[in-house]
């Protein structure tokens, strides 16, 4: 197996979109409508790096992960695995699944409750043509990599005998058993007890570093994204509205939606700011609005926001925002949007 360089692009998506049929207007000849759950998302997953995708429920982040895992077929867009174009029309074979693995949110639902852990770990290995005499050694190896030792204690257990954190580790171990290059983790900690979340998060980061995995970490918790990610992308109504390297996104948010997200996080450090309420926060994600999808909720919307779709603006240093505020000449208003502490330095 050839070794990947750290930072090398493993999985690349260009303009991925997925539309679902929406409820039609009544009547036989009514126009058919569709909703774009994901629209025009381009991203790259690099070896040894974590890309965090943050968004509220319904923003399309899970559909995106399923498209990358090729469980959901995109309506349009391209996918490249290590530079090779993938024919999305074709059935996904085990070779693709062997490279890209998806880990789901609920470990209690993901693992067969009537089978022992051993069975759940060996299934993917058998499907991927692992010789029978290697199964046990391989199971031990993956359990060790998720710090579940001694392994014998876990292999013969049933899922109900394990805690949520342990089960999620087994879920991760199962994903790793076929030696994938890409790990897509869809809200891997949101169902877990608060005190064990950080442990699983640290494990994911460690796996990413030691195994040189390209990882996508999907979450609605922007603080955990800041903790783990090399790059963070914010999704709103099916589009990536802002993305940046390191902690830039949270330290210097440009898009009003990112700012809203950050200001909504409970923050006991600044109690004087509490209960000031959030502006323009009511309403549901606008999938079928003209112009910027966030414009109906945006407190800083310009006239152009409601008519034209905003371009993706390069703010330098790998920081991009899909917003008219930095795009228009009114650069000043965009800068004024930034939180006061960090914006001064940015200038």
């Amino acid at each position: 197996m050839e070794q990947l360089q750290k930072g090398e692009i493993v999985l690349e998506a260009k303009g991925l979109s997925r539309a679902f049929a929406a409820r039609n207007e009544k009547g036989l000849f009514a126009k058919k409508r569709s909703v774009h759950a994901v629209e025009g998302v381009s991203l790259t997953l690099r070896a040894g790096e974590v890309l965090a995708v943050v968004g509220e429920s319904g923003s399309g982040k899970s559909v995106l992960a399923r498209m990358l895992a090729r469980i959901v077929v995109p309506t349009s867009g391209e996918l490249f695995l290590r530079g090779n174009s993938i024919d999305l029309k074709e059935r996904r074979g085990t070779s693709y699944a062997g490279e890209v693995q998806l880990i789901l949110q609920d470990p209690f639902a993901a693992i067969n409750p009537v089978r022992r852990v051993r069975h759940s770990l060996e299934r993917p290995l058998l499907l991927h043509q692992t010789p029978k005499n290697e199964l046990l050694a391989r199971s031990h190896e993956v359990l060790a990599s998720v710090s579940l030792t001694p392994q014998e204690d876990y292999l013969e257990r049933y899922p109900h005998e394990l805690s949520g954190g342990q089960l999620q580790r087994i879920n991760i171990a199962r994903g790793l058993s076929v030696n994938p290059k890409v790990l897509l983790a869809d809200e891997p900690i949101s169902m877990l007890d608060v005190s064990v979340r950080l442990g699983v998060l640290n494990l994911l980061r460690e796996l990413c570093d030691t195994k040189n995995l390209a990882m996508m970490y999907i979450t609605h918790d922007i603080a955990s994204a800041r903790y783990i990610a090399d790059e963070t992308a914010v999704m709103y109504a099916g589009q990536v509205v802002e993305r940046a390297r390191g902690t830039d996104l949270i330290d210097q948010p440009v898009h009003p939606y990112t700012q809203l997200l950050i200001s909504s996080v409970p923050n006991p450090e600044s109690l004087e700011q509490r209960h000031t309420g959030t502006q323009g926060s009511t309403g549901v994600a606008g999938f079928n609005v003209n112009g910027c999808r966030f414009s109906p909720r945006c407190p800083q919307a310009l006239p152009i926001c409601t008519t034209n779709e905003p371009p993706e603006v390069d703010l330098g240093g790998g920081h991009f925002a899909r917003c008219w505020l930095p795009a228009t000449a009114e650069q000043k208003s965009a800068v004024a949007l930034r939180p006061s502490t960090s914006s001064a330095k940015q200038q």
Partner: protein
Amino acid sequence: MSTTDNPPILEVSEFNVDYGYGDDAVRAVTDVSFSLGQSKVLGIAGESGSGKSTLVYALTRLLRAPGIITGGKATLRLLRQENDLPFDLLNATEAELRGIRWSQVSIVMQSALNALNPLQRIGKEFNEVLKLHDTSLSKADRKARAIELLALVDLGPDRLQRYPHELSGGQRQRVVIALALALRPELVIMDEPTTALDVVTQREIVSKLYELRQRLGFAMIFITHDLSLLVELADEIMVMYAGRIVERAPATHLYQAPRHPYTLGLMDSFPPLFGERVQMSGIPGSPPMLKSPPTGCAFHPRCAAAHDRCREESPPLVAIEDGQRSVACWLHDPTSTHEVPVALTRRHVAASEAN
């Protein structure tokens, strides 16, 4: 607030709840005592299985078999009660309970979708409860009151005609909150009302609750696993672990200067939004199985500061710092010779000093 002179609205002492009988019994809540002042907010924090929901279900007598209250006292003192007598929650008959449920004590559950009848328009939910509890209201009055209640949570009167599935999660939760307030209760219990919601929606709901409480002055018990949310909302916080209270303190004290290693661990489990990125560890191990709880202090297998005594004896909840707070940890025992970790000795900064 002037109401502080009044006796507490809810007083609980030595409260115990089991699941199951005899040898199979699992103790879910052990020796819980607390009191809640009029118009105060008590936050209960804890992980799943810590007994926080069981506690309030048992207190409101909503607990179903095999849950049994095995001991303790719980007294409710309502200001609006005609006869000003304390209400013994645990010995009340079903009829007596019916007299206080919803009208005096109401509860909001985690999943608003499950709390609302999916086959019924929102308006009917309001109509039903108002009709049952206040026979003097005419149909028009009830509708007017429902519209007024919806306005309280920033929803328009058109919502009365909607079914629950036509509303978003946040709107549904707001309808449930409006319903809970329909009969002007003196005590509202919130069982993880925002856990299933997005952070933006959570912010809206919490701000709304804060505002409503200021305006209507009801007392509140707010249950969540998110300690930082509680710090914003609660006057006092109670941290539960394996069915016991491990620490109880005013919200800012608890946040700035935790005394129990578990409280400290819980706070270190939330990565910060600001500052340097540093490696954090959370709490090692997993929450205990209540079926076979550890000996001594239930937290000792996961505690870095555990010593022999922790393995043998369960620490009682004792008042420290002039009775301002209570903690159940041998480290804070006056006879203890063990060194208290630095992180657990921090001083809190009073709000007035901070500015």
